[in-house]
């Protein structure tokens, strides 16, 4: 078990003939990911990546001819929102949007559409999902992961890698690691992922990594307080971030009230999550929490 994706997921890569799509599709194939199709409008009929992946003109065609049920999107920002909507209307169940820089007004509409169609969207502006040794649906370095029983949820890419690395160093492997993205509007929230990990019998502990801006960590923690039986460790980046400045991610900005690192850390703690004050403590805290449980 794992969440969202596994070795049976049938992947279609949207934007597979672009440079990002080519590079990462190859990396995913090398990891063993079951890529069954690619989509680039106008390039349907060819095969790409050493003839390993057939390319279609639309997601609909890819679904009809290959039974694709999961998509990953590498198309440029002006077209990314529409690519998600196309996948959703083609009946794709899980869509990961890697693209960085999708306009927020586009995402507001996309979010409504995927919710109405029952599509699970992860991202945009995220590193994707990896179910260890089964499916890498994203851009993270697969080799740093080790199979195990910790679920990892993070708003940030490299900070996810840092957490995974620390977990491996203390002898803890992962079931699935998921980067949900740092934009103001994203498809799958921290709470959604916690809910999935709680329901996954193979996952025994959960790491959540958040940052300044928004209320997502707080909503997740409050939900977890009453609904999660598994040990949880949390970290919030941005304790030293000045208010009013956007720290890289479009969503990482302290605009007052409960969205500071301090407030989030306090509330996570109150909800029973072991909070790492230093980023270097994530692995050790999870280890201690697992030994206690």
């Amino acid at each position, binding site marked *: 078990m794992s969440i969202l994706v596994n070795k049976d997921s049938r992947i279609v890569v949207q934007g597979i003939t672009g440079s990002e799509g080519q590079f990462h599709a190859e990396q995913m194939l090398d990891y063993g990911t079951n890529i069954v199709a690619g989509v680039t409008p106008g390039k349907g009929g060819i095969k790409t990546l050493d003839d390993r992946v057939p390319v279609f003109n639309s997601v609909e065609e890819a679904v009809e001819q290959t039974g694709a049920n999961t998509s990953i999107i590498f198309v440029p920002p002006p077209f990314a929102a529409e690519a998600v909507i196309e996948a959703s209307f083609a009946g794709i169940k899980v869509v990961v949007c890697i693209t960085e820089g999708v306009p927020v007004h586009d995402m507001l509409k996309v979010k409504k559409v995927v919710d109405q169609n029952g599509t699970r969207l992860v991202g945009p502006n995220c590193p994707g999902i990896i179910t260890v040794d089964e499916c890498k649906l994203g*851009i993270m370095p697969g080799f740093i992961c080790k199979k195990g029983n910790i679920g990892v949820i993070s708003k940030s890419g490299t900070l996810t890698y840092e957490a995974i690395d620390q977990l491996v160093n203390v002898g803890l492997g992962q079931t699935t690691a998921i980067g949900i993205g740092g934009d103001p509007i994203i498809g799958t929230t921290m709470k959604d992922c916690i809910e999935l990990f709680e329901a996954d019998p193979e996952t025994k502990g959960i790491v959540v990594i958040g940052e300044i801006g928004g209320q997502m960590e707080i909503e997740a923690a409050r939900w977890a307080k009453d609904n999660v039986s598994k040990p949880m460790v949390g970290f919030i980046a941005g304790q030293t971030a000045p208010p009013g400045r956007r720290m890289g991610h479009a969503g990482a900005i302290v605009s007052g009230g409960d969205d500071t690192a301090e407030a989030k850390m306090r509330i996570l703690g109150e909800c029973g999550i072991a909070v790492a004050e230093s980023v270097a403590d994530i692995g050790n805290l999870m280890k201690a929490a697992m030994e206690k449980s």
Partner: protein
Amino acid sequence: MKIHEYQGKKLFADFGMPVQDGYVFEKLEDAESTIKKVQADFNTEDVVVKAQIHAGGRGKGGGVKYSPNFDKALENAKNILGMNLKTHQTGEGGQLVRKVYVTEAYDIAEEYYAAITLDRSKGMDVFMVSSEGGVEIEKVAAETPEKIAKVWIDPLLGMKSFQARKLAYALGLKGDAFKAAMKILMQMYHAYQSIDATIVEVNPLILTTDGRVIVLDAKVNLDDNALFRHKDIAAMRDLNEEDPNEVEAGKFNLNYIKLDGNVGCMVNGAGLAMATMDIIKLAGGEPANFLDVGGTASAETVKNGFRIILSDENVKAVLINIFGGIVRCDRVANGVVQAVTELGLKVQVVVRLEGTNAKEAQEILAKSGVDIIPAVGMKDAAQKVVNAALGN
């Protein structure tokens, strides 16, 4: 991206909103003619002289002056152009006023507040109005929240008339003024949508003594990610209002924000960059900057990153913290060697490289003979760079 009041009003006017308007001057010798032109074109004796900077609180800081006649207007204009305007949003340093907006003046009966922004939790835009305009809305929200009315707008439907009606009623308006306000609120939403704004705020929206509803101020922030489809608005960017180092960094796709400390840092990824700043603080130091080199850190990016970090004279030591995913550590290491050799660094540099090709990277650094301090793990790296900054 932020724009000036006069630019925001121009955008609003394009959507039919009635704005208090005028002309802008940037040179002292143009002050006289600008004031006279406003007086003539808007058929008015009295005018308002308004400093144009990208920060709120201009009035309180002395950057907005009502001027009953030409002489007073000229005096105010001369005082405001070139002043260092300090407001609660500029910080202690203040902001130099390079542009002055001279506008028509209105006799105000009532002042209201109107704003649209994103409600992240609800995944919808929220339109807020208050009968308490002209003051800090944060204060109204804290002390008399019942005086703020809100509607949430379905992104697929857009704002509906009943929602605009609710807001206009909340302002206590009647008759023609009610109808005018409703129309303005709808236009304001269309502007917000059409220009891909992240915030539009009118504070105050006024009712004049002769019953007209007029936009007296405009705060407009735009979604940087959507500027590709608004070339005309992108051209409104005023680089004078931004930190020169941040502008310089942007040219190389680096995301840099200057802070007040003395430990510089260069990191890949925004989350890890923030976490690095935090752990520097925990180790007893103060971060001098946020710098995300992004997903494609090359030798060139690293070199430019160094240059920008070191342009801050407070920096006493630098930490490079890279977790290679797509970014290959060996390339970063080559960049470090090249930068240190070419720039001849006078501060100590601590390097922590993990992930893709980290071993090769360590060999490159070891063989190069450049004087850097290697670190393993974030805690070690933070401690070493703080020690270096303190001169230990």
